[in-house]
């Protein structure tokens, strides 16, 4: 089981990756955000038995991680950590949906297995798109882009603070855990009751801190809006990035590219 320390360190890695300077990192954050959102909508819009038709969309995460020098092993590991959710969602499809949908080499494949595979593929595509967005842009910049694009202020501010204080919170939790472990023996003192009390304690401390932070913000003139002294500028390359990918998504959605390719090859061979 990944422990808290390591998983937070991994969040730090995401930020570290975002400090690189590659063609992908130089694209305006808003352009990357819009493209990623459109990509996700496209992926989700497919029929649940579509599997082959989804494959061309793999080009998007693969190309982006190559251009942005993002380590594939790291992204795969992150995918793996999140995969239980998708597994849980699709787990029962093969059980409930046993009607045979197709044959591969004489082996009957039920609709349930196809839709299960489709769920996993969609999960991998959407989550890797989100990871790539964060790793090529930086969490805070994504928040700012959200704000610029008209997302509710409360939402983008929340995200910003989540990212800032998750480290402080984890630190505090870890210190409490350590303090408990040092005074727990033979499994006594590690029960659910103590755990509940600790969580409650952590919540109270968090509320206190929130109040202090808010106070510090008011002291420096906070009026509901977080202002950052940075300017975004859209260049032609940003438009090309968005439009190019959108065209590709639409093409992939409108016609089943693997099928076309298959027919074409069959046509040549015939």
């Amino acid at each position, binding site marked *: 089981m990944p422990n808290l320390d390591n998983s937070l360190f991994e969040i730090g890695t995401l*930020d570290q990756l975002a400090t690189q300077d590659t063609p992908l990192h130089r694209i305006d954050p808003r352009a990357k955000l819009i493209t990623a959102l459109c990509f996700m909508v496209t992926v989700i819009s497919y029929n649940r038995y579509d599997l082959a038709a989804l494959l061309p969309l793999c080009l998007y995460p693969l190309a982006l991680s190559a251009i942005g020098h993002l380590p594939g092993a790291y992204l795969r590991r992150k995918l793996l950590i999140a995969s239980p959710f998708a597994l849980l969602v699709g787990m029962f499809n093969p059980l409930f949906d046993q009607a045979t949908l197709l044959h591969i080499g004489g082996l009957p494949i039920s609709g349930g297995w196809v839709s299960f595979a489709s769920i996993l593929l969609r999960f991998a595509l959407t989550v890797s798109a989100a990871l790539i967005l964060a790793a090529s842009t*930086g969490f*805070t910049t994504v928040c700012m882009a959200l704000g610029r694009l008209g997302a509710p202020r409360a939402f983008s501010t929340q995200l*910003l*603070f989540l*990212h*800032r*204080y998750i*480290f*402080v919170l984890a630190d505090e939790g870890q210190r409490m855990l350590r303090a408990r472990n040092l005074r727990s023996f033979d499994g006594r003192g590690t029960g659910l009751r103590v755990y509940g009390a600790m969580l409650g304690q952590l919540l109270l401390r968090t509320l206190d*801190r929130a109040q*202090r*932070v808010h*106070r*510090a*913000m*008011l*002291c*420096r*003139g*906070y*009026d509901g809006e*977080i*202002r*950052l*002294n940075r*300017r975004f500028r859209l260049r032609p390359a940003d438009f090309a990035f968005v439009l190019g990918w959108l065209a590709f998504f639409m093409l992939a959605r409108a016609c089943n590219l693997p099928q076309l390719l298959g027919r074409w090859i069959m046509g040549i061979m015939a």
Partner: protein
Amino acid sequence: MSHHIVEVRGLRYCYPDGAKALSGVDFRIRHGESVAVVGANGAGKSTLLLHLNGCLAPTHGNVRIGDYPLTKATLQQVRRTVGMVFQDPDDQLFLPTVYDDVAFGPLNLGLPAEEVDERVRQALDTVNCAHLGSRPPYKLSGGEKRSVAIATVLAMTPDILVLDEPSSNLDPQARRKLINLLRGFSHTKIMASHDLDMVLEVCERTIVLHQGKVLADGPTRSIFANDALLEQSHLERPLSFRGKEAVV
């Protein structure tokens, strides 16, 4: 210059749960003075400081900053004049980078981008942290965090600095740097501290709080020479002041 005066009259404060924190505090601090607020844990030091720029509103009594009584209407003006450095820098540094944090106040004042940039540079230079601009605050050391927290306040060019336990959790060298920094400021300074050695070096005047009241108010050296007073307020003579008699 009357506008750097801090005047507190008959200040009483009860927390919402009924706990009495301050029961009648009076003092007047003039332009350019360096004043320490000392006292036991729970004597009301932090509560008092929080009144000086309107983070808390008095239950009774009033606070005047320069020509303004502290009211809702003057709050913005007062907060521009009184810069508050909190005890825990993690409470004060809440943005993604040091630069953003130092720029936060000036941007809220509505200054143009270039002016903000200039102020951030100056403030970070003053605390010798110019190289930290692009770093995320949570990765700084304790001493760096403290310096940056002070810079976030300096960038708003306040006339009065209020600091809560500025030397807590600092290593000796960081503490020394802080003392030199504070001594270099010409601002009116008010700080709460248990670090009486630092108080001796930085503040010429000391206010002793005890159970929500001013027990003594006078020159630091004469207060630290009064052993009975120190004992009563749970303090003791600073190490650097042992075996000396005060020159009163």
